[in-house]
């Protein structure tokens, strides 16, 4: 059976050059980067090289990069790191209704511990309007955290404008750039952002490594306590393999990102056009243009997302529905509901996210399969009447 992977916002395949780059760290280069002796030295060098590669990608200073175990951990470090600073207890945080659970649930946790949080809404197209953030900021606001791009819809948030508003108000600005990194430019030098989260495995690195950019001079409490690694900002022996992989992946992105993004965008646009051309009663969730170049989120009316997803899986096509419960089953996406989507549409939504390695043949195969499955499922639906649908 042909396998087509259209779930790159979940994770990406390891780049072959990344796989090569980490080989020595699975054998002879085993040292602890904190050790003074020869075994540690070379490994420490590799970790610092990776830091420099990531810094070069964003255009920040190497010491502004702090390694973490994941994008989620970077988000936790950013939000809790600000919240736990002396004097910040019980104060106010502004975030949005469509953040990743790493931010959402961290904020809920802080609310349970006496902090106040405002979750600003998004407009019908899934985008946070800067004015809502301006209105939400109060005298005791300590942090604004708005994602750079949404994981489910790919919507790009105006973080430049929001960052400027935060800065004018003297409030720290964090952005979760886990999805945006490698897909849209994030020029650190001009971006009015103090903290930025990223992850390795979303950009063809290896799972288990992420990081937080912390603008020089920004104070942040530690969340993990222990040794002095990462200059006390994140204790624990470094995930050397993950960090080296991430360094290599960022290095490759710096070189090839523009060409690869253009290729992925072309495929995504062709995919989207073909689906809209062949399948009626299709709804695009998210903004038509202010969107990641690889992502398309669609509701197939009169079809349950779950049935569609499982049928596509059985045909070798990997995609996702926004949201999985603790059990692994699917539920209506809170992000689409926050956008004001019809609950039935939210239940029937699927996210396709493309990446390097996808081909024209993949797209053709996927479009054929999706059309076939949608037609089959609609034929079973008591609610779907094609003639009426066309008349609408």
């Amino acid at each position, binding site marked *: 059976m042909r396998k087509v992977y259209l779930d790159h916002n979940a994770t990406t395949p390891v780049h072959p050059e990344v796989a090569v780059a980490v080989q020595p760290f699975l054998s002879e280069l085993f040292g602890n980067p904190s050790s003074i002796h020869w075994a540690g030295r070379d490994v420490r060098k590799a970790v610092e090289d990776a830091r420099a590669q990531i810094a070069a990608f964003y255009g920040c200073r190497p010491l502004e990069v702090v390694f973490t175990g994941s994008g989620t951990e970077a988000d936790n470090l950013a939000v809790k790191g600000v919240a736990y600073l002396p004097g910040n207890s019980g104060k106010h945080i502004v975030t949005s209704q469509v953040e990743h659970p790493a931010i959402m649930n961290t904020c809920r946790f802080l609310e349970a511990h006496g902090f106040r949080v405002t979750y600003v809404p998004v407009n019908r197209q899934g985008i946070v309007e800067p004015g809502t953030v301006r209105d939400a900021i109060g005298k005791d606001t300590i942090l604004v955290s708005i994602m750079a791009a949404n994981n489910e819809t790919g919507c790009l948030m105006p973080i430049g404008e929001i960052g400027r508003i935060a800065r004018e108000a003297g409030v720290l600005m964090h952005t979760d750039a886990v999805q945006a990194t490698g897909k849209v430019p994030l020029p650190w030098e001009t971006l009015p952002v103090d903290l930025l989260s990223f992850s390795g495995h979303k950009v063809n690195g290896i799972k288990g490594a992420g990081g937080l950019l912390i603008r020089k001079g920004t104070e942040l409490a530690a969340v993990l306590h222990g040794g002095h690694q990462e200059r006390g900002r994140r204790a624990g022996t470094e995930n050397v393999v993950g960090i080296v992989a991430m360094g290599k992946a960022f290095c490759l992105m710096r070189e090839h990102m523009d060409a690869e993004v253009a290729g992925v965008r072309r495929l995504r646009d062709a995919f989207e056009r073909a689906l809209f051309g062949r399948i009626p009663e299709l709804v695009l969730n998210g903004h038509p243009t202010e969107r990641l170049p690889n992502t398309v989120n669609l509701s197939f009316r009169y079809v*349950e997302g779950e049935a569609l997803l499982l049928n596509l899986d*059985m045909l070798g096509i990997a995609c996702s529905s926004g949201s999985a*419960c*603790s*059990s692994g089953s*699917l*539920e209506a996406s809170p992000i689409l509901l926050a956008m004001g989507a019809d609950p039935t549409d939210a239940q029937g939504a699927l996210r396709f996210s493309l990446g390097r390695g996808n081909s024209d043949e993949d797209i053709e195969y996927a479009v054929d399969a999706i059309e076939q499955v949608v037609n089959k499922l609609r034929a079973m639906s008591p609610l779907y009447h094609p003639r009426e649908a066309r008349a609408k």
Partner: protein
Amino acid sequence: MTRKRILAAMSGGVDSSVAALLLQREGWEVIGVSMDLYDYSKVTRDREGTCCSLDDLYDARRVCDTLGIPYYVLNLRDEFRREVIDPFVQQYAAGRTPNPCVLCNEHLKFRALLRKADELGAEGVATGHYAVIRRDSDGRCRLFAAPDASKDQSYFLFSLDSPRLSRIRFPVGAMEKADVRKIASGAGLPLYEKKESQDICFVTDDSYSRFLETRGIREDRGRFVDRHGNTLGNHKGVLHYTVGQRKGLGIAAKEPLYVVAIDAERNEIVLGTDNDTFSEDATVASPTFVSGFPPGKEFRSTAKVRYRHPGAPCVVRVEGDRLAVRFDAPQRSVTPGQALVLYEGGEVLGGGWIECAGTSRS
């Protein structure tokens, strides 16, 4: 060549695991599925003894890994709320003691899963139930109790009719438990025993009344009365009691008192002696028959009035959309809300829901 596809409902327990394995050996393309029915994070995390906790889903996933088959958790929370929880609450509020497991079997395991089977291009659904489906030469299907009476679950399946049975398989239904376990250990499958219908999976902290309160069913204290309407004391609210109950009444009397009837409308609980808990007849609502029809206007049968009830010989009369069941000998604790299932020999004829029970009036 394309193999025929079937959904196997997996609990992670030995019975459903072996059921899936046997189908695989028969050459089916088996897709393992479990149902996500309820937000269990709101229930105690590590509860045992229910059908489908998060731990069970983990076990089921590991079994499917061992069998090398795909495994999906299907979200059926809306259906579960609509078809099981809401009726449960309404029944309780009406002073009945409902059996949500029968509703779950009928509406979720069989109706909703058969719909999922259609959607996933599968012929039907298999489970690890102990019961036997016989396919007659004319294509009709009949339902029988499992030969191993101690394992028989046909009581929970009475509402399945022939067309639906034709798409259902119980691969271990006619087997001895020991043989099922032997097959499982031979294939390296775990030997977990998952309990069915022991506790109601969506009720927190083993407290029905607290659950029902969260559903807006208010607790009103009321009177305990005897069969003549004389006040015997006060009760904590009808939700706390079930017909046949003896413990926890808090009433001192010469002989032990039992709940004989619950009158939700008057908020009264009728207490009586052991003798008063026996009923000679029962009215059964919403009857269904496996064949589609009752065997006659009036017929003899054996009725089970609850799971594990040995069965009582009776005469059944069809009266409009209800059945009038007259037991040959009075039966203890015939409880409104429970299913009454009719058998002829080992065959399940059908059944319905006990609406009221006639307490023997001497």
